[in-house]
């Protein structure tokens, strides 16, 4: 076990594994669930952005083969076993494969609304599959899987995950957490160049935190599970994009910007919660201190099938271990 088992029953000790931004990757989600046993975690915490970004049509041709797109090029797939293998691999890197006829594909190409409908159906199907998987693997254990939505997550997933037996899904809430701690859930992000599902302005974040902060009983025992990272830190540095979503270069180099939330930075500085768990910026893998508060963004490289996360131990109201890891 990554953490010593002999301390398992120590007073107030909580061992949590935190990961974020899995973006539909089946293999990463399965690793995430398996990490409870592998690392000996008491709680699994998922920091949002569960859903993926691309549908891969697998179009059946008249000659019985299938045509699809992989690694920047068209690929021909022969036979059911190859299709099954392709579907599995696409799911592992976070894509949504969809087997269809060539005519169906051509129809979809010309119909953005139909594409959107297909996209949403496949995304929600996978979220349901994940809920079932978590239930199967964690049933009989007392390991909760707590989660909140990220900026990329459709609102429709909230209902699915709230009803899922083993998911402990929250948004805009402060809830009791193992070991006598509390967890503050605040999903979404500040505005992005992509105009994603759940974006809030700084003013809206001021209102959101004004609603949440009074619910915290003891800030020194509160864990902020906030998808967006604090602004102006190592957790939120990323390349600047123009209106066409192309990287902006200055003097031949990609310009860097901070894409976090200023309101959150101010709140953390003022209230000094015990711990901040963040995601959103995949490049921002780091652990930092803002005053006494330890803030973590485990980053994300889900397309490689590698799960990045953080193993954190809380004991007697302190963060005794907080380590970035990947598996």
């Amino acid at each position, binding site marked *: 076990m990554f953490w010593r088992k002999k301390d398992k029953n120590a007073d107030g000790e909580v061992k949590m594994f935190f990961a974020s931004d899995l973006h539909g990757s089946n293999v990463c989600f*399965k690793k995430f669930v*398996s990490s409870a046993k592998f690392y000996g975690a008491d709680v699994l915490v998922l920091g949002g952005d569960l859903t993926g970004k691309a549908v891969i049509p697998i179009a059946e041709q008249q000659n019985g083969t299938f045509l699809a797109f992989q690694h920047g090029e068209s690929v021909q797939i022969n036979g059911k076993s190859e299709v099954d293998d392709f579907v599995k691999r696409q799911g592992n890197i976070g894509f949504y494969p969809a087997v269809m006829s060539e005519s169906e594909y051509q129809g979809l190409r010309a119909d953005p609304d139909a594409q959107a409908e297909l996209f949403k159906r496949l995304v929600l199907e996978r979220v349901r599959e994940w809920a079932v998987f978590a239930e199967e693997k964690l049933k009989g254990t007392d390991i909760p899987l707590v989660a909140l939505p990220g900026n990329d997550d459709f609102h429709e997933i909230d209902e699915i995950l709230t009803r899922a037996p083993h998911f402990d899904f929250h948004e805009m809430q402060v809830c009791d957490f193992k070991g006598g701690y509390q967890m503050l859930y605040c999903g979404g992000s500040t505005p992005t160049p992509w105009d994603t599902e759940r974006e809030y302005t700084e003013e809206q974040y001021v209102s959101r935190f004004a609603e949440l902060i009074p619910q915290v009983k003891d800030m020194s025992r509160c864990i902020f599970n906030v998808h967006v990272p604090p602004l102006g830190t190592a957790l939120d540095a990323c390349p600047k994009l123009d209106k066409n979503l192309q*990287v902006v270069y200055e003097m031949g180099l990609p310009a860097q910007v901070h894409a976090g939330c200023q309101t959150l930075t101010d709140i953390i500085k003022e209230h000094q919660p015990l711990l901040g768990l963040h995601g*959103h910026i995949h490049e921002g893998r780091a*652990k*930092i201190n803002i005053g006494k508060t330890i803030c973590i963004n485990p980053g994300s490289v889900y*397309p490689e099938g*590698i799960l990045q996360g953080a193993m954190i131990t809380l004991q007697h109201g302190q963060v005794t*271990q907080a*380590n970035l890891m990947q598996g």
Partner: protein
Amino acid sequence: MSVSDVGAEKRIFLRKASGLIRTAGLGDTFIYNLGVVSIGLGVGSMLYYGPAFYPQGDLIWGCVIAGVAMALISFGFITWTITLPRSGGIYVFGSRILPPALALTMSLVEITAWLFYCAIAAYWIVILALAPMFSALNLLTGNQTFLTISQTMLEPWATFLIGAAILLISQVVLSFGMRFYLTLNKWVFILAMASTVLLIVTLAMSTREQFITNLNALVGPSLGVPDAYNAIIASGKEKGWGEPGVDVWQTILVSNWPFLPLIGAAFSIAIGGEIKSVGKSQSVGMLGAVLVATVAWIITVYLAYQVFGFEFLGTAVFNVLSGNGGLTTPTDPAISLLTGILTLSPIITVLTSLGLALWMWMWIPAMHTFGVRAIVAWAFDRVAPAPIGRISETYHTPLVAITVTTIVNLIFLALFVFTPWFSKIVILIEAAVLAWSVVLAAGIFFPYLRPQLYEKSPLANKTVFGLPIMSVGCFLGFIAAQFYFWTLFFDPNAAGHDPTQVMIVVGVFVLGLVFYYVMKMIRRSQGIDVTLAFKEIPIE
């Protein structure tokens, strides 16, 4: 939500969603690698050591041999970095297939060698660029102050202080972050390339007679001979410099000198996680750097032989390095000094000398970065103390790691300057090549031993004679790396294998293993099993 079909040939429907953005393109990768190769440093070291140590070695063919070998090694690493497109170099690759202790050891051996390269570069900036520049200015202007400066620079304490200042500048540059470093790097690259072009044009427009006339006029009086050019050659031959000719073994050995800087062509494996279109960018970035550097060296060596003469280059340096008391130039006959004598132009002398210094400088932050990234990765994996991975709130950079590696650089520099260990420590390069060959060998078996990881690689469906392309690429790279391990092993001038040197190599490997097991013990006492840091989470 918005969904778009990005084109008939791209059968994919994308929605607008945020995500990881890789920022380094093909051009960035190429410049990064070519900067670490350091064309100017290669020119300086090849022309300095090549003719002197290997009178029967053909340096031009040596460049070709080294270029082909490095292309094969790059091929192997390209397959690795496409399969695992993450930053961290061979540590990332090794930790996915080798036992944890071995993966850390390979990484430690590698970064020890690269930090050693940092110190070499700082040392050479003083010895091969700045001191010869001031000496040449003395010859050209008659101003004794320049000679005094040059001679002072060659005093051990002065060499150390200047070298240390250069290494500390690297510390400052990296502390301000990669963006600051890369911006600076581009400007340095442009200036250094311009100086190389100036050198090539200067050599192309000059003649042997011009050089001999100038040398005899400037150096002859101080040597007390009217024909200094031929007197230096005769003196070298009399003191034991071998007769020129062509010998295959010596040609293979002289290829060590172009190979050593060419190692930099694969350094983009250290920033693999930041490169977009990784397959194309890494392939062109690595192989392009090998090609451009090799061609530039062949042209420069050919022109230098035409202008300065092979025998003169060999004997002038031989008389310095062997300490035989033979005739030579007033200070080291480095390319910057010889260019100054050739042109009689203080401006061209300064420009080519500073260009050489800039090329050497490019090694320092690049190698330094490599070391910093590796030990930060160790800290993340708990096999190094946690503070090493700490990110500065002010600069957003790993200041502790940068400082630790700077201290190691300074220790290496002190060893060069104040001890006779220089020739012993150079063996670390051989150790690094050995570490590379271990990781390349592991890559041969990666598709078979880690099929779940390999199936996600864009190379997964590509085969050569029915074998996975990664296995083929890593096999060829392994053969090339082994070739240079043994070539360096049998070359006492470039590396060698005397008992002390072998002990140093063994010592570094043992140090890596001891370091791993000590950290493992410490972490176990803290309740942490570091072996899990290297393991893929099994899906149950």
